[in-house]
């Protein structure tokens, strides 16, 4: 296939997969609606009054980057895993294999869709935060975007890894669920890590999503990338490993 055709295929497949993503009510709900719901619940409880303890930040100011991390965790673990594992198990990939389309196109289309949906989820959060709670954004928009891209891509690798290694779609889904809930809680994505006991905070260091929360929260309040070398290192490592392993273990059936 020539490169022009490959791009054309990729766009068509991404467009189709995007439509299919939105037709799957559970996935669409968790990516787009659930974080928004959480925002309104927390917003109603705490409001967005700035408090001196959190350095002039209101509760919602802190929640936007944390909930963005939550979306990344959910889509990376759930959407990619379930879609890829189901496609393999049902023979959707088998059917694709009889066409000239390359496995890379199939994987990249998946990443494009999940990334777009994650971005959309974040955008909804930011808009709602701005309109309803007048959140403050003190960071640099480009730097925030860069961090968001790094975090998202490094997390999608986990999804491909699970989808590629688990024997059935059902096991992949269960493992993804089992990993997701503690991860959301321990990483500080669902509520601030500062509110948890010190011992539990230590466990957080082993949870990949923690680094996403750290980096995004830092960038949101305008800290330079230099303050987050550990987070960036861990995430970049995950990204590289994710790409290598995902491509290596890709199976049509």
């Amino acid at each position: 296939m020539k490169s022009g055709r490959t791009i054309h295929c990729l766009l068509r497949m991404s467009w189709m997969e995007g439509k299919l993503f939105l037709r799957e009510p559970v996935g669409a709900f968790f990516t787009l609606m659930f974080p928004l719901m959480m925002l309104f619940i927390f917003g109603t409880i705490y409001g967005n009054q700035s408090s001196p303890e959190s350095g002039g930040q209101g509760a919602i100011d802190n929640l936007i980057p944390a909930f963005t991390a939550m979306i990344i965790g959910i889509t990376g673990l759930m959407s990619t895993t379930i879609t890829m594992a189901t496609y393999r198990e049902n023979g959707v990939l088998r059917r694709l294999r009889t066409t000239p389309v390359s496995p890379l196109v199939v994987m990249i289309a998946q990443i494009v869709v999940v990334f777009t949906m994650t971005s959309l989820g974040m955008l909804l959060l930011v808009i709602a935060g701005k309109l309803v709670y007048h959140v403050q954004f003190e960071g640099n928009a480009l730097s925030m975007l860069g961090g968001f891209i790094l975090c998202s891509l490094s997390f999608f690798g986990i999804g491909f890894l699970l989808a590629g290694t688990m024997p059935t779609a059902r096991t992949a889904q269960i493992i993804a669920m089992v990993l997701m809930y503690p991860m959301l809680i321990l990483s500080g994505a669902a509520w601030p890590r500062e509110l948890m006991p010190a011992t539990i905070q230590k466990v957080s260091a082993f949870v990949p999503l923690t680094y996403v929360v750290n980096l995004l929260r830092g960038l949101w309040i305008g800290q330079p990338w230099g303050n987050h070398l550990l987070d960036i290192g861990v995430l970049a490592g995950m990204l590289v490993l994710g790409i290598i392993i995902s491509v290596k273990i890709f199976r049509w059936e």
Partner: protein
Amino acid sequence: MDPIVQVEGLRKVYGATVAVDEVSFEVKEGEIFGMVGPNGAGKTTTIECLEGLRSPDQGTIRILGLDPQRDGKILRERTGMQLQQSNLPDRIKVWEALDLYASFYSKATDWKELLIRLGLDEKRNTPFSKLSGGQKQRLFIALALLPDPQLVFLDELTTGLDPQARHAIWDLVRDVRAKGKTVLLTTHFMEEAERLCDRVAILNQGRIVALDTPAALINGLEAEERVIFTMDEGLSPDLEKALARAGRLEFQGERVTVHGKDARKVSLVSEVVSLLAGQGIPFRDLRTEQPNLEDVFLCLTGRKMRE
């Protein structure tokens, strides 16, 4: 002209099981070639080696003069495949699937025309999971025809379909041949092979046990034809003698069966009918049973197809 498919000494082993052994055949341009045999005979393994989905342990395969392992990419542009176990995403609509798959090929045929030709136009907005078995198979045929292929592989196309849907699919496959394409299919329905295929390879336990046109296979069997009819009055001794000259007689109450070969100038059925009519004997419910591929399989392997 070079054959479209050339297979020479194909062998595929899974662990201790020899799935396909010493399979050789050729498929000519424009024919419907069928591989028929019971489950586990090696049909699907063979067709998947030909499609490039499995690599053979021994033997050579040439599809359109190319090697499916080495030139898979080119072949996937020029052949269409319908697989035994494959699927589309549940929520994809019929037209979307065709539109998407059309974008994979550099010279895709117009999918809107295929939609009409395969009778799927009314279902264009139906999600894949809501289609009936026959409609799904028609969609898979449409997908296989998208690259405007020279050769179409159809693996167990009508398994699980009701007879009506099966006949409709046969017409579609004949229509594909009429468009000048070559079809290679597998089936475990002997009737399907007999009625649809120009030539048939009968597989049993990984080997080809016979390969010819269905008519030649059946004639070669020299099996008996049967003429069966019902008489209310009973046979006169004269008539019984005359019928016995035409073939072996068998009585079941009022039903009479004449077993005979069709080798004479007059066919068995016209001989029986003229004997009965000549003596003015009333008879009813007359039917004939020809030997079929099922009998051929039974004769070659000593076992029934469905056991």
